[in-house]
């Protein structure tokens, strides 16, 4: 088992898992029933993708950890999700912006990963891609609706974009793990994904009468296990049952 391969699968799986947990918090609280269902559906897809990725990671590791062990029995520094995924839900505008930026990323990523030399990962990616296309439609349409909506919705979505934009740098920050996976033909070239991601995002921003914030050079490293305090609270909630009742089963 290669450590890079395992870490790489954790990055993909954890980003989806953390995002799914966040979206789940909207259930019963979204602005309308349709959006409540929409966010819950997207959360479910992400959770399913995370399950496929993490169970594969566990098998690859070969230490007997299944997807539940990886989801519920790791602490903050062992999580490998992009820091963007753990940013708090905020208001509906912030949730939509976070989703929009990550959907655009996962769409490109899964598109390329569906041709990965790792056949099992390629299969998961091909399935995830189909689902992600619907997520992207949801989030990009909402972004336009909010951006090109009322003065208040525009103000809020603009604020969220300014807040979350700096976290997108991490998506394209190539480190040793990314490089090893690209060289092995497992992962895609992040340098090739970036312009496609940017083009898709900017086209929607124009439609939403929004402007991409200036890059301030901020670089997070969630994928190397460096997280903000938000993830600690999220895990405390998500892992409550296993922490309070270790080994509990359905």
């Amino acid at each position, binding site marked *: 088992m290669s450590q890079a391969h395992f870490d790489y699968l954790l990055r993909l799986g954890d980003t989806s898992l953390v995002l799914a947990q966040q979206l789940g918090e909207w259930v019963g609280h979204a602005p309308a029933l*349709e959006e409540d269902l*929409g966010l819950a559906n997207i959360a479910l897809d992400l*959770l399913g993708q995370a399950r496929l990725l993490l169970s594969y990671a566990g098998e690859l590791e070969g230490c007997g950890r299944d997807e539940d062990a990886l989801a519920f029995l790791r602490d903050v520094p062992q999580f490998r999700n992009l820091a963007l995924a753990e940013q708090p839900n905020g208001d509906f505008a912030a949730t939509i912006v976070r989703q929009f930026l990550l959907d655009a990323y996962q769409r490109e990523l899964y598109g390329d990963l569906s041709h990965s030399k790792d*056949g099992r990962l390629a*299969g998961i990616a091909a399935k995830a891609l189909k689902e992600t*296309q619907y997520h992207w439609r949801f989030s990009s349409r909402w972004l336009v609706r909010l951006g090109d909506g009322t003065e208040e919705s525009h103000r809020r979505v603009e604020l969220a974009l300014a807040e979350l934009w700096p976290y997108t740098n991490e998506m394209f920050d190539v480190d040793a793990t990314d490089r090893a996976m690209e060289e092995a033909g497992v992962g895609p070239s992040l340098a090739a994904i970036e312009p496609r991601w940017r083009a898709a995002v900017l086209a929607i921003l124009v439609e939403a009468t929004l402007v991409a914030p200036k890059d301030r050079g901020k670089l997070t490293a969630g994928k190397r296990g460096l997280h903000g305090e938000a993830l600690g609270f999220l895990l405390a909630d998500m892992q409550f049952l296993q922490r309070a009742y270790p080994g509990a089963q359905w």
Partner: protein
Amino acid sequence: MVSAVVAGTAPGVERVWSVLRGVPDPEIPTIGIVDLGIVRHVQARGGAIEIGLTPTYSGCPATDVIRQLVQEALAAQGIVASIRTVVSPPWTTDWITDTGRRKLAKSGIVPPRRLLGAIRGATDLNDEAIACPHCQSLHTERLSEFGSTPCKSLYRCAGCLEPFERFKCL
């Protein structure tokens, strides 16, 4: 060798298929799992039967229930089989049979259009005008691409004012 395997196990495989045809989808019981296209294969390996099931959506909560329903239906016929989850190639609504489509339509769920292999274009098919399954009016509106189950979208008809669902093209 090959012909011996086929001759010796084909009746068993056919019997398993006929049991599977009687297993309904737990969330949309009007349609069976075979008509939904999620049974990917039934194979006899040695003396054992293996069934390949694929999830509709990665996170479909019915997946585990379906496995259980399959095991129970087979056990009732005295058949022991192992179930393997198959992820690739990914499920597509094109695998829903004509019988399945008729059954969906009959219960008021608009069946998906066939994609003819255009995977990236699947979502665009979801934008076409849909006739209301109750009054046939084309004056319908999509409320959300995400409905009561991951595989359906929500609509409403401006003609008869009834809500209805449509199977998403995937």
